[in-house]
């Protein structure tokens, strides 16, 4: 316990808080860098100061109306994906579980695409995210109904696969019947996952569901720890695995639903982040939750900076970048688990 540098498999008593501090500083740095990026070059600090004065400058308005929402939404969405991934992996006791497993992501995407397709959002800009959240809740409820009350983990995963397949098929159907190439392009681009052109209003719309989700998840730490010993022994420790499952499903549905409804599908953050952080918290599923949220924020901020720095002809969507980086990582995980054998 004398080691002062961070290293997996060593001291785990103080590292979660140390780790959280390091991640928080990383987030602040990335947020400032992200605020600095854009078509206009502005002085972030002067603009921030001006924002607090009575007569904000043009730079200040660019910052608060265009860049700040993007940064804050990236932080919130990244945190949701990270913490939900950690909770799902803890609940299912499987490092390959992701928040999308219970249908919330594809449900949210389908809800949003339905609104876009039928033009229901014409008079009301926030119809898309609201429909997305509704879609997420419906999809999760369907998974629960399909799996039944006493479902084991395998049945749950299968029900999730079925609902995800149904949602994806429905989206394909809508794309197939898209009235014009332009509409089709709009639908496809929306599903790719993007953080540009978001407003503060988008943030306010997603925030209530997101905060409730976070709150429900962060209080689950101890029960997830107990689940390390399996559901039966966890029950003998006074934890109710059935209740815990409900709680996490609802929380993930709310938080991931709100995230996907706001930005479209951003893949692999929920899978990769908890996995990267796990060795630093001694593999304890409860201690993983908060650092995963912070890690998710940092990773999405970094990815969003990445898409703006990588010179491409069309602007690269952030969801495409996370998938491009995440997929090989996922492959690496599978190969490693095949070698070491996760139980």
């Amino acid at each position, binding site marked *: 316990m004398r080691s002062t540098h961070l290293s997996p498999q060593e001291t785990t008593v103080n590292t979660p808080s140390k780790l959280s501090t390091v991640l928080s500083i990383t987030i602040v740095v990335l947020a400032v860098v992200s605020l600095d990026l854009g078509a206009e070059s502005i002085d972030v600090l002067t603009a921030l100061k001006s924002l607090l004065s009575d007569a904000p400058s043009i730079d200040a308005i660019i910052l608060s109306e265009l860049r700040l929402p993007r940064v804050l939404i990236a932080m919130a969405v990244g945190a949701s994906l990270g913490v939900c991934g950690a909770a799902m992996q803890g609940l299912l006791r499987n490092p390959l579980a992701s928040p999308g497993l219970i249908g919330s992501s594809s449900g949210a995407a389908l809800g949003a695409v339905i609104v876009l397709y039928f033009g229901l959002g014409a008079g009301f800009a926030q119809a898309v995210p609201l429909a997305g959240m509704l879609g997420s809740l419906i999809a999760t409820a369907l998974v629960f109904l399909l799996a039944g009350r006493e479902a084991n983990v395998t049945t749950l995963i299968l029900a999730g696969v079925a609902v995800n397949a149904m949602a994806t098929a429905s989206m394909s159907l809508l794309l197939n019947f898209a009235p014009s190439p332009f509409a089709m392009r709009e639908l496809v681009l929306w599903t790719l996952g993007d953080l540009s052109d978001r407003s503060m209003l988008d943030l306010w719309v997603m925030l209530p569901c997101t905060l409730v989700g976070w709150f429900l998840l962060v209080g689950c730490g101890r029960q997830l720890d107990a689940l390390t*010993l399996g559901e039966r022994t966890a029950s003998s420790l006074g934890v*109710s695995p059935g209740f815990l499952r409900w709680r996490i499903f609802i929380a993930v549905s709310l938080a991931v639903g709100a995230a996907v409804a706001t930005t479209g599908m951003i893949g692999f953050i929920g899978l990769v982040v908890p996995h990267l952080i796990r060795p630093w918290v001694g593999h*304890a599923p409860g201690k993983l939750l908060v650092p995963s949220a912070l890690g998710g924020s940092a990773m999405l901020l970094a990815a969003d900076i990445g898409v703006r720095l990588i010179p491409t002809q069309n602007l690269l969507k952030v969801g495409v970048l996370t998938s491009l980086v995440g997929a090989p990582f996922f492959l690496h995980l599978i190969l490693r688990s095949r070698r070491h054998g996760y*139980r």
Partner: protein
Amino acid sequence: MVTDNPTSVSNDLLSAHKVSVVKGGKTLVDTLSISVPPGKLVGLIGPNGAGKSTLLSVMAGLSKPDSGQVLLGHEPISKVSNRERAQTLGWLEQLSTAHWPVTVEYIVMLGRIPYLSAWQTPGESDDLEVSRALASTDCEHLRHQSVMTLSGGELTRVMLARILAADPQIILADEPIAALDIGHQLQTMDVLRDYATGTKAAVVVLHDLSLAARYCDYLYLIHEGKLIAEGAAREVLTEQHLRDVYGVDVVSGGGDVPWIVPVRRINLDVSG
């Protein structure tokens, strides 16, 4: 010792009254009654599939019986809150495993969960209990090791330490010595024997009849969900009973250190 009538006054810490469990049309446990008085180490013995584990999980309040009831003290166990039940009963699962490569210390600390609220971090008294539990199961040297690197026997001892850390009134252990070498078999039985004194008690499912005879105060011999015999070892582990239940001829002997050795399987149709 057995009280079939739940209303009769007894000082049993835990008792099952005419408990039956039916699963898929098969009666796994057939109107069994078990009492666990304070200061006693109670043994459940019987062949594979006799219903011992099912009975134990019903007594732990982890599954509901189809008929009959389990009393924790004088209260039906279904009425006891999860938290209180977890503080009173320690249940050692058969082939208990950990799903993440966490440390031994972490696993044993999980035993303190019944005493911690959702946001509370373990304190000094919890650390003390963990150290004490690790010491009494001979696991101190494993404290910082990952559970994935443990042998089966070490893992069982760590899991027992987890239960000791909660200092429950009653320990329910499902085959705690199945994976252990003879040295650690005796050590684990000693731990359970020492634990089940005063106001505490333990119930243990065993396959080793010699150790059951040596360590347990009271035995229940179960076969196909039914009670065959109960009482002190010398009344229960008779050659006739073991012949009927296991279909095995045994030789036995010893005084303070009883031994029972299976000799040959018998064809019940011919001989009996």
